[in-house]
């Protein structure tokens, strides 16, 4: 039982799970799940009570029972008590102060990451304002490598997402080239296939591999098919760089995705065996998003933000190159408007980074959400200030296959210019050598097509 008094009223919260949900900033998905605070006062009361909870309590009280959830078992069994020692005496409220303090340097934050559980991190985020989430995330540094280096200071990478409604290779190639000529694609060139079809996946994998090889692009490819499809592709000898999978924070939700920890492990080992990384072997690409567990009716009574952070425990186990919170994709029943999407994006980025993940964000919204380009500009800018590892790059913000709006090639140029951010160093060199960027990372004034690509375009005629 967790008790507190605020404004002459006393509040009791029966369980830690209940307390966490009530303390969460307002969002539609928690109302949908029936776990949200009834009003502003109850929410603040829960935040006061949560601030008093010792971090150690999260090791004693599992939010989802250990016996029936393999993610709880993963979190508890792999908790690093030595890394935790430095902060084990703190309450959630103290922990916020400590994170904001000068003591919490980049090195110190890195050293405690394995001692933090998702629930501890979710808890502290619930009593942090946007500027706190930005300030602390900015101090975290997570770098990963495959054929280039993601997450270095003052760098912002982009996933080039050249989706096409029918996976038409020429259609994919058109968006791909457009993106490269705008300087996008260092995080990954990643295609969402229109259908989870082995043959289409194979064709796209071979195509991306040939493009990367022929034009010597220091990046990696990914076809975002279900992990079982990718395993079949690997078995057929396909050139798989990154294994993709959507993951969630409860075993039940992952069941509904048709995955579990063993399957992810099997896929990672299969990709590692291919040995395709040149600089490093971070070979997994995960996507998450608040509300996914609830949408599978598998949230186990948790609020959606806590569920989300538990998914990061799954991601962390497999040493991914990239983790992408697809924040506004899920729709208004989980994040109703621009305000809720922005808050969720900042929370996810902070929580992921603090746990040691290479966190990026698909800054996005759907046409049935109460959001627009102005909201996305706000989130994009705030995330970039917070040191977000990567964003999406989609022609004109319009994904013509998935039917939602994300950040464009132009958006990436905007945020790099206003904040002085650069692409991954290996990719930056390639852009400069080809003459796409000049030495100051500006697009060349005359919009000339580099000689390397000119021949391809000339074949098409005018």
């Amino acid at each position, binding site marked *: 039982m967790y008790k507190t008094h605020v404004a002459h009223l006393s509040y009791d919260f029966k369980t830690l799970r209940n307390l966490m949900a009530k303390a969460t900033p307002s969002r*539609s998905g928690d109302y*949908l799940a029936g776990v949200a605070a009834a009003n502003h006062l109850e929410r603040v009361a829960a935040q006061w009570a949560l601030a008093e909870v010792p971090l150690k309590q999260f090791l004693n009280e599992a939010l989802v029972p250990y016996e029936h959830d393999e993610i709880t078992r993963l979190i508890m069994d792999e908790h690093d008590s030595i890394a935790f020692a430095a902060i084990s005496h703190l309450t959630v409220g103290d922990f916020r102060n400590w994170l904001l303090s000068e003591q919490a340097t980049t090195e110190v934050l890195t050293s405690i990451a394995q001692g933090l559980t998702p629930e501890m991190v979710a808890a502290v985020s619930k009593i942090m304002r946007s500027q706190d989430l930005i300030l602390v995330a900015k101090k975290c540094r997570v770098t990963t490598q495959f054929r280039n280096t993601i997450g270095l200071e003052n760098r912002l990478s982009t996933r080039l997402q*050249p989706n096409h*409604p*029918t*996976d*038409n*290779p*020429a*259609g*994919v*190639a*058109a968006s*791909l*080239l*457009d993106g490269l000529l705008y300087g996008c694609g260092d995080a990954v060139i990643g295609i969402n296939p*229109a*259908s*989870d*079809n*082995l*043959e*289409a996946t194979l064709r796209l994998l071979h195509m991306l591999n040939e*493009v990367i090889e022929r*034009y010597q692009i220091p990046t990696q490819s990914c076809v975002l098919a279900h992990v*079982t*499809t990718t395993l079949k592709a690997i078995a057929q000898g396909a050139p798989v760089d990154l294994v993709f999978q959507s993951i969630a924070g409860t075993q039940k939700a992952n*069941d*509904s995705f*048709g995955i579990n920890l063993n399957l992810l492990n099997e896929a990672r080992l299969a990709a590692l065996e291919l040995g395709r990384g040149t600089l490093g072997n971070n070979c997994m690409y995960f996507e998450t998003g608040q509300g996914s567990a609830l949408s*599978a009716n598998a949230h186990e009574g948790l609020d959606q933000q806590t569920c989300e952070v538990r998914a990061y425990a799954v991601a962390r186990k497999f040493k991914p190159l990239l983790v992408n919170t697809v924040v506004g994709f899920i*729709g*208004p*029943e989980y994040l*109703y408007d621009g305000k809720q999407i922005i808050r969720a994006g900042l929370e996810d980025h902070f929580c992921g980074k603090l746990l040691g993940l290479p966190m990026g964000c698909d800054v996005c919204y759907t*046409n*049935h959400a109460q959001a*627009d*380009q102005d909201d996305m500009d706000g989130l994009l800018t705030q995330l970039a200030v917070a040191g977000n590892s990567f964003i999406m790059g989609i*022609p*004109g*913000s*319009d994904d*013509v296959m*998935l*039917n*939602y*709006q994300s950040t*464009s090639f*132009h958006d990436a*140029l905007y945020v790099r210019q206003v904040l002085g951010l650069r692409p991954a160093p290996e990719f930056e060199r390639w852009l400069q050598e080809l003459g796409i960027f000049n030495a100051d990372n*500006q697009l060349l*004034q005359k*919009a*000339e097509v580099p000689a390397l*690509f000119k021949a*391809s*375009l000339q*074949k*098409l005629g005018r």
Partner: protein
Amino acid sequence: MSESNDATVISNSWDNLKQFTPARIALGRAGISLPTRASLDFQLAHALARDAVNIPIDFSELQLNLSLMGLESLTLNTQAENQQLYLQRPDLGRILSDATLACLQQTEPISTDAVIVVADGLSSKAIQHHALPFLRLLLPQLHDYRLAPVCLVKHGRVAIGDAIAEHYAARLCIVLIGERPGLSSPDSMGLYFTYQARAKLSTDAERNCISNIHSNGLSYEQALKKLMFLITEAEKLKLSGVNLKDETTDALTDDSPKYVNFLLD
């Protein structure tokens, strides 16, 4: 506003790539930003798409055409009574309304092999444009199956098919539904196939999805081919979903010059 003569707008010389994709490529730039024309184009498309979400479905024409084809159909409601509730409460869009349920229970129980459900989803336009032409192709393919009446659902989500399939004890459940409207495709239809769908028991992992059925996306013929493959395999394997892979070959690798990959060939 003629940007072609505007010295401050830098156009892209690769705009002939637009023939290959509906994506917004080669937009040019003002500084590093979107030129005014492209920026306003986007705002226009967004306004159209947002409005499309709110156009209510009208099943009367579909119902008339189905009856002309000799097919019985029923209009059903879910517990999402209005559009605002429908958008915020997907759970209600997965449950039939009490009145609808009472109606169904009054009808003579029939045993069927397959049920076709048509739901508005997030784009009534998609259903208005694509449901009937697709059903005209699909129905002849199902002549060996005992079909339940075609169920037309207002404010429905994909999983509403489970309850309906259960009611008709149908082995095959085919749901046509309006997908969330995109900027370039406000009328995209999705198709979900579930084997042995049962309310509250079936999960998304047990469904196969064929999406992007619209004039610039997957054709009716391609979608039908995929669906018939799934049905045949599901009957053999006695399951659907992630363990049933769509291994049909798309007709996208033909020799038509449209499909030549200029980056590689």
